[in-house]
């Protein structure tokens, strides 16, 4: 099975690179000149060639990695500092590099890792590459097309802003995440959970509490946040209260569905033991409800963050991620806004990841974890 095997990504990338060759230069004016252009084309061609050659997976992956990323690096450099200077050839080469990266991800996805560490590394590298390319495309389009800074800054500017605003970001994260989000999350999930149990245990509560719980579900933060500021003051306590309200309902609903999910035979079994309500709850129904409960915990992990940030749009001390976002929008420091958003996204992903790991450990027995 030797000979050339050209993937569709590789083929298309080659075509686009050829088309770009006819439409040079890349930018007007070009910062690097023809030598840089030549280097880019060479890199792309080389990567396509190696990928098509009967080389080992690792060699092909390495060639694609270098070709796509070095290529796009030079390409962006060639734009120079002039915004909106890109010409057709620029976009053709950009897409060409992107296709190579896509091909790289396909090659990586097909690898069956031999070791556990290899497997973990792959699981991390693939989404990472995906993310890198979102950023690369963002950067290239914003700078290439000259989109106004106050509408959407390029990732490089955001990264620079993160770099020199670390103390401010740290203070904001501390205020918003470590105080408002965590406290509100724990209390809101706890309250939703307990309400679901109460509704399950007492028919009276089920009939009375559930409609009220549904009402709470729609209280929009915009309406609630000012009221919470009235009640709990303008510091983080009122933001935590908003988070409590936001996270309450998903937990209530999911715990309710989860408690209904245990099997009939299992419940009959507990009846034969004359097991009390609480024993059945703890030994059968809660474990069976765990997949649903973790559903709510995951959804809430992102909701809590949104809630705390938006709640800070109302009255707050002059620190916090939401405060910073709304203030800096007004100051046209859009890079700072996106820096906060990036930090929020990072924190949220970590938060979610921790819960997902916990889920794997607790519901190891569920078909969705055992492999479905």
């Amino acid at each position, binding site marked *: 099975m030797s000979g050339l095997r050209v993937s569709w990504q590789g083929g298309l990338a080659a075509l686009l690179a050829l088309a770009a060759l006819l439409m040079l230069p890349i930018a007007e004016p070009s910062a690097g000149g023809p030598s840089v252009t030549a280097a880019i084309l060479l890199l792309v061609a080389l990567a396509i060639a190696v990928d098509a050659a009967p080389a080992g997976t690792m060699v092909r992956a390495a060639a694609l990695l270098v070709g796509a990323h070095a290529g796009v690096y030079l390409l962006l450099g060639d734009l120079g500092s002039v915004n909106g200077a890109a010409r057709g050839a620029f976009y053709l080469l950009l897409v060409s590099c992107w296709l190579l990266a896509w091909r790289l991800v396909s090659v990586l996805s097909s690898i069956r890792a031999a070791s556990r560490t290899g497997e973990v590394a792959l699981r991390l590298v693939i989404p990472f590459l995906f993310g890198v390319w979102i950023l690369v495309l963002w950067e290239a389009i914003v700078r290439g097309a000259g989109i106004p800074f106050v509408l959407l800054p390029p990732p490089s500017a955001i990264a620079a802003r993160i770099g020199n605003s670390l103390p401010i970001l740290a203070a904001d994260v501390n205020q918003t995440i470590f105080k408002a989000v965590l406290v509100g999350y724990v209390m809101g999930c706890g309250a939703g959970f307990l309400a679901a149990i109460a509704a399950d245990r007492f028919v009276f509560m089920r009939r009375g509490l559930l409609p009220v719980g549904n009402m709470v*579900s729609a209280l929009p933060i915009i309406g609630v946040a000012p009221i919470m500021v009235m009640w709990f003051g303008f510091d983080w306590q009122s933001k935590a209260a908003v988070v409590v309200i936001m996270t309450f309902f998903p937990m209530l609903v999911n715990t309710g569905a989860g408690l209904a999910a245990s099997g009939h035979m299992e419940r009959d079994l507990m009846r034969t033991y004359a097991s009390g309500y609480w024993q059945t709850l703890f030994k059968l129904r809660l474990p069976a409800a765990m997949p649903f409960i973790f559903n709510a915990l995951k959804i809430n992990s992102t909701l809590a963050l949104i809630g705390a940030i938006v709640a800070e749009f109302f009255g707050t001390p002059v620190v916090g991620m939401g405060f910073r976002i709304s203030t800096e*929008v007004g100051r046209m420091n859009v890079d700072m806004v996106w820096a906060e958003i990036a930090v929020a996204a990072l924190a949220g992903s970590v938060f979610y990841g921790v819960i997902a790991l916990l889920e794997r450990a607790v519901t190891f027995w569920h078909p969705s974890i055992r492999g479905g």
Partner: protein
Amino acid sequence: MTDRFRDKILPVTAILLAIVAAWYVGAYMLNAPFQRDLDRRAGETPTFSEFVVKTMTQPKPTLPAPHQVAVNFYENTFLRSVTSARSLVYHSWVTLSSTLAGFAMGTLLGIVIAVGIVHVTTLDRSLMPWIITSQTIPILALAPMIIVVLAAVGITGLLPKALISTYLSFFPVAVGMVKGLRSPDAIHLDLMRTYNASKAETFWKLRLPASVPFLFASMKVAVAASLVGAIVGELPTGAVAGIGSKLLSGSYYSQTIDMFAALVAGSVVAVLLVTAVGLTGRIVERAMGARPA
């Protein structure tokens, strides 16, 4: 009839009464300090009962008393023509329509994403982390920018608001459905394998039915999120129509009674929506031969 009274009406009324009672106490406690300031500046010394009445009749109370809200709600719901900009029915309808549009799109998107993630390994590995990240972006913070950008390209009216609802509602559905679509028992999956069923057949005949409990739990959360999204989406449109605009204009002028009436309207809409989803869920489960508990 009496059963219905005992099973449904009594508990709901009891809980509502308890809430109303607590609310009155809260209204008194929160409005009292300001009333005291007022009286002191005016040099009045009312008796306790006079004082209590005063705390319940402030025009712009910190926490309006239930009857104030009820009166306002009643007037703005039943006494206004439903097309009037002062009618809560009108505003609720505006909000409801973008909620429903957003909910429909969000549910669909959520299911499509879940299907992709469950069936395509590359998507599972590369997309899921970024979907999670997308939700940690405080969309509500960006809502104004989004509305502005969409308006700049000529998209106005219902769609931008519905898009915010979509953004908020697709995630619960996606997370729930990924779980649900992966929840069939191993033996059932094995069975489909023995038939060499295609992915599509396994999806329609096994994964989808098995995911129904997860789907409806998620849809309840999603419909509530859609409503919140629709309300928030109404804020940056210059407060023209919708429950969100009522809340906003109320807040500029500290018209707390108006705000609470709008909140009540929002909650009523929420209860209706969540109940509708719940009922649909029950009907579907019954049609699927679910065993009564």
